């Protein structure tokens, strides 16, 4: 009995010890502040989302609002919807969220509307016309389709590929699909066939093997669009190993220090960034303006596409180091 009670007390203490320090921080926040939630479909420690989060935090400090930034442990639409439902229960002043799957968000967004909680979509959203789309105020983020087109146009400005390819590393992600479609449409307009690769890049070794296999069996492919940093990183390595750096023109999406270095050395032609710092910063800023004055912009607020290539990479590099890009 003694052992049991000791153990039970130990368990309770451990649990409390695990929870209370964090709780202390949460409850210490000023109660008068507006509470704004941010919810994304990926982990906030991902370098991409870390920059977005910095934007959120900087704006939250500037506008003196309480920020509660949430992300799923792994890429998960279901997990994000569950987080959204929990955020609704807290009755916040507003929610800023990505919408990677419009059908999955239909019901929770309608509940938010019914509860009078304003929602701003960021980063990825329902691209259908307003009368058909899921209910949210407006969108802040890149235009993914235009981004894909710009990537293709940049490649076409330096060469006419014999055959092209586009690698989507998170199949089913509507934003990545739109990037790929923009690329493919633009290539087709130029009369160039473009294949779409859909293997995941979360295991770089396996992904590298798959890409090697593809490039070996498709020797005519001399232009590749990697729709995000993970496939860009793998593609840089694979092209180097195959001795095809420069022969296969590589262009990518988003920005990491590795991509910046690759642009400087010429192994990457360029990258399309969506300036996700702005998505975080403007998300909070526009939500505050909406809550205070009811401002709603006339349409989507585009933070991209913005091309980074050899011409402007030096300027951008300092911003990457400072965590703004």
């Amino acid at each position: 009995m003694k052992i049991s009670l000791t153990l039970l007390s130990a368990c309770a203490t451990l649990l409390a010890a695990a929870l209370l320090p964090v709780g202390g921080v949460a409850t210490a926040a000023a109660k008068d502040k507006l509470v704004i939630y941010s919810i994304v479909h990926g982990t906030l420690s991902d370098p991409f989302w870390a920059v977005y989060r910095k934007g959120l935090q900087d704006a939250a400090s500037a506008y003196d609002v309480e920020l509660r930034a949430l992300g799923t442990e792994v890429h998960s639409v279901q997990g994000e919807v569950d987080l959204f439902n929990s955020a609704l229960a807290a009755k916040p002043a507003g929610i800023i969220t990505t919408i990677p799957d419009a059908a999955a968000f239909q019901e929770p967004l309608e509940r938010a509307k019914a509860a009078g909680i304003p929602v701003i979509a960021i980063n990825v959203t329902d691209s259908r016309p307003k009368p058909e789309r899921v209910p949210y105020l407006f969108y802040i983020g890149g235009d993914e389709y235009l981004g894909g087109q710009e990537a293709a146009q940049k490649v076409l400005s330096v060469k006419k590929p014999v055959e092209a390819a586009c690698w989507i590393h998170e199949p089913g992600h509507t934003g990545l699909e739109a990037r790929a479609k923009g690329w493919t449409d633009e290539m087709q307009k130029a009369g160039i066939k473009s294949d779409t690769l859909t293997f995941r890049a979360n295991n770089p070794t396996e992904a590298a093997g798959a890409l090697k296999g593809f490039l070996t069996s498709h020797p005519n492919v001399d232009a590749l669009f990697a729709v995000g940093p993970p496939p860009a990183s793998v593609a840089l390595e694979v092209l180097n190993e195959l001795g095809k750096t420069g022969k296969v023109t590589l262009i990518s999406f988003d920005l990491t220090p590795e991509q910046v270095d690759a642009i400087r050395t010429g192994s990457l032609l360029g990258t399309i960034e969506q300036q996700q710092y702005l998505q975080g910063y403007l998300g909070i800023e526009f939500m505050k303006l909406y809550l205070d004055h009811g401002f709603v912009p006339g349409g989507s607020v585009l933070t991209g596409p913005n091309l980074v290539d050899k011409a402007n990479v030096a300027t951008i590099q300092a911003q990457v180091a400072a965590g703004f890009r």
Partner: protein
Amino acid sequence: MTFIRLLLARLETGALLSALAVAGIFALWTSSFLSLESITSILIVTSELAILAIAVTLLMIAGEFDLSVGSVLGLSSVAVPLMMVNYRVAPLAAVVIAFAIAIGIGFLHGTLVRRLRIPSFIVTLGGLLFWRGIVFVVTQGFPVKVPRGNGALFDVFSYRFTNGFDVSLLWLIVWFVAFYVLLTQTQFGNWIYASGANERAARAMGVPVDRVRTILFVLTSVSAGMAGLIQVGRFGSVDATRGQGLELEVIAASVIGGTSLSGGVGSVGGTVLGCLIIGMIRNGLAIAGISSYWYTAIIGLLIVVAVLVNKSTEHFRKAAG
């Protein structure tokens, strides 16, 4: 004193105390935790998880594992809209076929374990990878949407009323009652405990251990199919990663609820409480705006604590018979 002894003799006590502790901490932490919106959100997460975890618990009591449940959930849920879109299969027929697929997979796993004497850990690990691979192959990784105008049938599996409650809670009640009765009120239930506690003795006493386990593999797969259909109803679409990682979460819920990894010990009520704890922690952390990494850390802690509590109260259960 006798009351405390009786309480400690119950397998669910550890999970119940943990559930109360978690609820208490979050209720003190944030007032929104006890709101109707919050409670209904917790119940949605709990229902989907528990329908699957209850069946996994029975399998674990019988001395086997099923690591493939997340992939089976993914396959059976993706099969429904895929058949409707690609082959114009009627919604009801697609649902029936999805359950048939689940039954087939469960039977296959059970048969492989029984006939080839391969440990269930290996067979279902293979199943986890194989069925997930099939999901990626048939979808090419892209999400599949339920065609418009087919909502009515799927509302039977999941529909959230204006007060926040979801139909899935009713399915959890059905699953709970059915599995509770099966485990505690029938001869089959006795066979489940006997198969996991001492397989050799059970066989000597005439318990059809292989048949019991095969039936439980089938029930586990059917439960995975059910959880998958609830998610089809809830989201109106299925992505290729649906159910990924769920296998460990349901085992965690079972262990937190008092189920032994070595078989012979476990309860349906304890597992539902384990799922409720997981639902409360997920929801409570999100309401408080705390990173989901804390969730992973706390669940890890709870698993170890649950095993310690169950170990330390074992002699009370033995004394109580």
